[in-house]
């Protein structure tokens, strides 16, 4: 008997994809968020006074830049099925460290670098507790959320450090010449490309999805599950600390309670952007649209003189809808299929 396996004599060939490119691009969760973003921007431009002004875009982007930065590593962390709730506390800790080190006489750049390194250490604490001790990241990072915030407030008390060099402060709030876009978006753009490449175009990124979809199968396929998670927690800590340096300069103030509660905004935007809380699903451009959508809505409502409580209610509702809608759609389509099957069954039977 001749072998039919391992010979190309009877080679089958497969389509690369089940659906054409435009369908795969168009009918995605991410595109729906981008569509919503465009729609909200259009409606707000037409109905809200001053929304269409370039200065609105500048302030909007300055406001969301820290969240945008943190959303990048958070997307990767959540794709592995983990979560990092400590990011906003790392922002606070990094802000305080930058301030304290600068006041102690270090050059600002060195103080900022040391704060970012401290952020990486904070991230590695999360990562080691999750991977080596084996605790769930939800519990670990709730703990370190309190721990890092406590350290931040403890270091500086209720005072604030505001004596930062003016040229650095100006840099943080400056615009790309000739545009209303803040310069910090260049930093974000570079990091966004780096994280997109890491997630979507490296073997490491393939491992991230495999871990999120089936940790066990990934482990059996030689994916270094623990090492991958540790690296992502360190990245999350370092980028959160970078966001902390930006936050300090943007508001010209290092305080222990900087960015308090911001982690929820980051996670909400990532989930809104189509990343599955259970891991294994999502793409980096989704959360970016998620952050911008929430930012644009908040900005438009604020310009329309609607209070921040109402804004919170609206973003919360939006988040719930976005998490619920996929399952409602799935439920509805299966219900329709069943009804159709019943009709055909009774017609033929």
């Amino acid at each position, binding site marked *: 008997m001749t072998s039919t*396996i391992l010979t190309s004599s009877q080679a089958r060939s497969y389509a690369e994809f089940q659906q054409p490119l435009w369908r795969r691009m168009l009918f995605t969760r991410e595109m729906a968020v981008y569509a919503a973003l465009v729609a909200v921007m259009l409606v707000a431009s037409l109905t809200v006074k001053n929304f269409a002004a370039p200065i609105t875009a500048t302030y909007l982007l300055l406001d969301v830049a820290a969240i945008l930065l943190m959303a990048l590593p958070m997307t990767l962390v959540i794709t592995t099925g983990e979560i990092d709730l400590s990011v906003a506390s790392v922002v606070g800790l990094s802000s305080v460290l930058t301030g304290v080190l600068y006041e102690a006489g270090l050059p600002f750049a060195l103080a900022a670098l040391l704060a970012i390194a401290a952020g990486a250490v904070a991230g590695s604490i999360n990562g080691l507790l999750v991977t080596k001790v084996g605790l769930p990241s939800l519990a670990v990072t709730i703990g370190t959320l309190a721990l890092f915030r406590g350290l931040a407030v403890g270091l500086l008390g209720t005072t604030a450090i505001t004596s930062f060099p003016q040229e650095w402060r100006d840099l943080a709030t400056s615009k790309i010449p000739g545009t209303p876009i803040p310069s910090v978006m260049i930093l974000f753009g570079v990091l966004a490309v780096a994280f997109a490449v890491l997630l979507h175009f490296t073997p490491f990124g393939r491992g991230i999805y495999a871990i999120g979809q089936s940790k066990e199968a990934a482990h059996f396929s030689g994916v270094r599950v623990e090492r991958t998670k540790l690296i992502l927690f360190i990245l999350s800590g370092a980028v959160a600390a970078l966001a902390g340096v930006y936050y300090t300069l943007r508001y010209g103030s290092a305080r222990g309670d900087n960015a308090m509660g911001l982690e929820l905004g980051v996670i909400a935007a990532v989930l809104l952007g189509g990343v599955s809380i259970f891991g294994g699903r999502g793409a980096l451009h989704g959360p970016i649209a998620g952050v911008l959508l929430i930012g644009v809505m908040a900005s438009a409502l604020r310009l329309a003189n609607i209070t921040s409580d109402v804004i919170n209610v609206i973003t919360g509702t939006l988040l719930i809808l976005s998490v619920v809608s996929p399952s409602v759609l799935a439920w509805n389509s299966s219900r329709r299929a069943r009804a159709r099957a019943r009709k055909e069954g009774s017609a033929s039977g």
Partner: protein
Amino acid sequence: MTDSSAASRSGPTLVLDKVAKSFGQVVALKSGSLELENGSIHALIGENGAGKSTIVKIIAGLYQRDSGRFEYLGEPVDFTTTAQSKDAGIAVIYQEPTLFPDLSVTENIFMGRQPTLSMGRIDRKAMREETERLFEQLGVRVDPDHPTRGLSIADQQLVEIAKAISLDARVLIMDEPTAALSGVEVERLFAVARGLRDEGRALMFISHRFDEVFALCDTVTVMRDGEYIATSAIAETSVDALVRQMVGRDVTNMFPKEVAEIGEVAMSVEGLTRTGVFHDVSFEVRSGEILALAGLVGAGRSEIVRAAFGVDPYDEGTVTVAGARLRPGDPSAAMAHGVALIPEDRRKQGAVLESGIARNITLATRGRLARGGLIWNALENDSAQEWASRLEVKATALDTLAGTLSGGNQQKVVIAKWLATEPRVLIVDEPTRGIDVGTKAEVHRLLSDLAGQGLAIITISSELPEVLGMADRVLVVHEGRITGEFSREEATPEAVMHAATHKLEDVR
């Protein structure tokens, strides 16, 4: 027991006639027909993708048929939920029991319908007594207070059966219940099944093992490609006839191990120990050789190879591949030295079900495929195209999710993933579990071919004919120790089974 008209009514209990089911353009079942009689065990056999599971799901109310006739107790029925079929007295026992692991056996049996005392308190005593009575009726011993987490799959199935009986099920459908059971456990399950048949219930049994079909069943229905082929009384058919009906052709040689040149030692394991799991395990495998690890389910065979590959830790011993000692607990180190493991549990450990075929096939080679550290779809698809076609994976597109493939095709995807790593040592754990006869023969031929190309192969199988047909050498594992080693000539069923069921001292 069954007090209704069912017992007195003549004619089949359950009838499916030319039932069809499609999902979009995919036809899962073209024309399925089946008649289950009271007091009879009916086998349903066919290759993977023949439509057996679809029939089970239609009977269970999980799917609704598109057309055809479905009658139960002489009445046409339309089950739209699993609760409806359960209420009607149809119970389905799946290969993987679906129990609540932290609840006791008793609590599982009465889940959702606990007997109550006044003020809604649960009557634990009545529940426990009823459970004991059920197990007595079934003639088996299972501790009613034990949480189901620690129970073997065989015991969990018995709990499911007890639950079905307590619901007074008239029809019991068992979907590959024996796939994960050892010989003794299969016998016990069969005794229970025969008892239920003699009580007048209708049973349906799905299996890929012919010896079991012949040992247990009264009638057999064969399906192929979603269509009904034939129903025959067991006494009037033969394995050859059934295989012909199943594949539509003769399968001349199920275990075609060809002679290959046995070369250098490819992998050697020395004194491998994991406390409480396996002890002082030593063996070596040479290139061109197929080494089989035989033994009962739970003897520790899978644990040994998992530790050798690095997915599980071990306490003592060494694993050496081509002169290099492997770092313990690191599968990627084993892979770098040319070791591949096709694991036992295809759905959990082998394939990433939510991922496409291409991403699955390239998961273990993604580092090698990358150019300058980067990887993209085209690179993966080229490699996946080649390996999927070599293994003749049945699918239309490379981004088809692995979870939507049949068991045999999933296994081919997993095999493709590991062959793509171009291993020197290939470890296969239950390579043919739950896959159809045609694919089984293909896998056997593939292993033989690979050995011929100089790979060292370690295979684990619970099917003795497979072990004896394929292996150049058989190692028998009993309770975590190697209790026998047989060459191809020495390995008789009796010798292997004796070593598999006795401690070392008794064997020698």
